[in-house]
């Protein structure tokens, strides 16, 4: 039992580091992040990210696991892990290409024509074209198959009408993957059809959503008589659910640890703050809390190690990773809340770096518990797919979609 690289892994790691050290700045602290030179929102960050992605692409470091023909490197899963581990030690821009490369790319690879793959995948890898995912709707979140955005075929052109929500990056995306309902009289999983479309098509309107953090990372997207050629359909008509599952599977792999305050921050804070006239960390109740969070953080860290080890040994990782988001998002929320407790009255003031960090995490945590599969959906997945427990009774499963009841909140 060890954490050592094999000879090939060590060689690859060295190659990665050789390139990264010449092309990027190493982090001084784990929390360091890349900061764009311009003012927030002026597009500098996006331009920086595009430049960096192009550099990766030119050097053969974009979309490592993709085939070389489409702009990848044909790398092994283990090489992809090593790349991720090493790149996390450098300050590099990012955050724009993950949905395209992580979710749209795999679907195109499975369902698009060869010509389309040649046309769209390399610019996606290069960061030249950005993709978004148009799935959730106001009435369909966890129950994604309940979407209502309508697709009607006339000749070889589809007309789309409806609304999507929670679309990250729609405001700067060039293309989108879209799931629609093409048959309202079929049972809900059977009447869906999947497309990709140009986000600049007439009739597409993007409106930002203001979140409880005050930021706007997500959008509503409205479709009014938007035309999509049938050649941009992915999968058969009515097979959209099957195609969506490919995307969702990749989404779960892409959503990892929750970002924000973690054990180190609350540990440091407990050393700085007073509690009943002494250092907070000397208090038994504080120590108990810290121990619980450390155990969770460590449990996730070594769960990840077990998965990487399985990859390194040439086997497929087990379903253990499915616990990561549930545990880390809840831990984030609880640590943020407890940190504010430790700072007492001062915690609510917004002029201080430390309190702002904990406040930001407390406000950001609820969305992390929901995005990419809510706690509840993920627990269903663990119970059904990992432990083999039966599905809940689904009263709407074999009913024509247009006969399924909806409530006042849909």
């Amino acid at each position: 039992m060890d954490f050592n690289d094999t000879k090939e892994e060590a060689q690859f790691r060295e190659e990665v580091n050789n390139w990264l050290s010449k092309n990027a700045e190493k982090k001084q602290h784990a929390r360091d992040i890349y900061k764009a030179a311009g003012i927030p929102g002026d597009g500098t960050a996006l331009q920086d990210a595009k430049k960096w992605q192009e550099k990766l692409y030119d050097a053969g470091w974009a979309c490592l696991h993709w085939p070389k023909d489409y702009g990848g490197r044909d790398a092994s899963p283990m090489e992809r892990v090593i790349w991720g581990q090493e790149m996390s030690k450098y300050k590099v821009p990012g955050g724009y290409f993950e949905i395209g490369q992580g979710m749209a790319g795999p679907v195109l690879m499975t369902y698009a024509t060869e010509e389309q793959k040649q046309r769209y995948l390399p610019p996606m890898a290069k960061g030249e074209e950005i993709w978004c995912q148009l799935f959730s709707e106001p009435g369909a979140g966890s129950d994604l198959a309940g979407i209502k955005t309508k697709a009607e075929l006339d000749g070889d052109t589809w007309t789309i009408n409806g609304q999507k929500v929670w679309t990250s990056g729609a405001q700067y995306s060039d293309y989108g993957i879209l799931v629609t309902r093409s048959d309202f009289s079929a049972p809900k999983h059977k009447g869906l059809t999947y497309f990709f479309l140009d986000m600049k098509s007439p009739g597409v309107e993007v409106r930002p959503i203001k979140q409880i953090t005050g930021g706007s990372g997500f959008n509503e997207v409205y479709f009014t008589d938007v035309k999509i050629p049938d050649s941009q359909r992915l999968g058969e008509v009515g097979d959209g659910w099957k195609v969506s599952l490919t995307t969702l599977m990749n989404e779960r792999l892409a959503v990892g640890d929750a970002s924000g305050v973690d054990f180190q921050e609350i540990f440091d804070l407990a050393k700085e703050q007073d509690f009943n006239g002494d250092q907070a960390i000397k208090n038994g109740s504080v120590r108990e809390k810290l121990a619980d969070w450390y155990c969770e953080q460590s449990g996730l860290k070594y769960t990840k190690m077990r998965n990487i080890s399985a990859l390194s040994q040439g086997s497929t990782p087990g379903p253990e990773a499915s616990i990561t988001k549930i545990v880390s998002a809840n831990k984030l929320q609880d640590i943020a809340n407890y940190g504010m407790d430790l700072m007492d009255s001062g915690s609510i003031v917004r002029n201080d770096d430390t309190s702002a960090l904990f406040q930001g995490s407390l406000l950001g945590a609820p969305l992390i518990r929901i995005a990419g599969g809510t706690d509840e959906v993920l627990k269903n997945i663990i119970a059904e797919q990992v432990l083999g427990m039966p599905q809940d009774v689904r009263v709407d499963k074999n009913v024509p979609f247009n006969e399924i009841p909806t409530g006042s909140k849909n």
Partner: protein
Amino acid sequence: MNFSFSNEQILMQEEVKKLLDKENSVKRNRTILEGEEKFDQELWKSLVAMGLTATTIPEEYGGIGMGFLELCVIAEELGRGIAPVPFSSSVYLATTAILNSSNEEIKKEYLPKLANGEIIGTFAHSEKTSFPDETGIAVTVKGNKISGQKIAVPDGDIADFAIVSASSGKKVGLYIVDLKDKKVSIETLDTFDPSRSHANVSFDGATATSLEDDAWTSIEKLLDQSAVLFAFEQVGGAEAAMNMAKEYAMGRYAFGRAIASFQAIKHKVADMYISLQLARSNCYYGAWALSNDSSELPTAAATARVSATKAFYECSKENIQTHGGMGATWEFDCHLFYRRARLLSSNIGSQGIWKDKLITSLEKSNSPA
């Protein structure tokens, strides 16, 4: 990277599991719990015959010279089978304490007999009602005579000898005492989980031999080492309890369907699974630190211990809940796991002690994960 057990170790684990299944270890737990016997001698002999008590003992002392990693997988299976045997006392604790010792004579005398199951050992540490720190040891040694009382010693009425923590007046260290000595009196106790016997052990000038170790640090090390093994045992028990809950829920129908199809039950079992996975992964870290004698052992051991204690408690209590009323009957096995979960939490120091140890070790290393 190879952060996993080897194929040989996994094969060994399967052999131990097969033996415990064949011997119906859970049923034997109930027999000991309900009967007068202090432990299951037949099962113990089977484990000895398989060589399990000799696992970590080098060949030169009559053992088979494997390592702690093998002991980890054995511990997991003993936990799964809630085996009514003094394995943790004799192997995780007494054998490890002697292996740690530099006293060659003691090694030569005791290790071969521990390996072949001729003798059973235990660790006598707790006094009064709280888990002792360095200042809490009242048992004293003068010359080579030991006096004082240790309470609720696991297998104290089964073991042939005990490793005893005692103060010489200057420092606290580990001593070995023959429990058949006439100046030792043993009082068997009625306990929460009678599938494992416990006794108060009093010394009145019995002969004690020092393990010649470096005082309190050797006790801390022994606790850390055994904590990893206890954690594996707890994870084994937790997984068994989770599986019991799941199987029952699949077969129990209410409102016209398997209760396993209700989200209230599914989420409960998913929570057990999450708790178990975190504990198991921390146990792997503990196993790595233990087998490499790493400086990270104090942190790794406490992390494994705390999360495994939590997992076994959660899985065993929610297993009863999933079974409904039947889960709370004497007849069903749920309570055997619930009792064992509590017992293992109390052995070698309870949850609060280990949480505190964890934070203390992080403060010392100042470099958390």
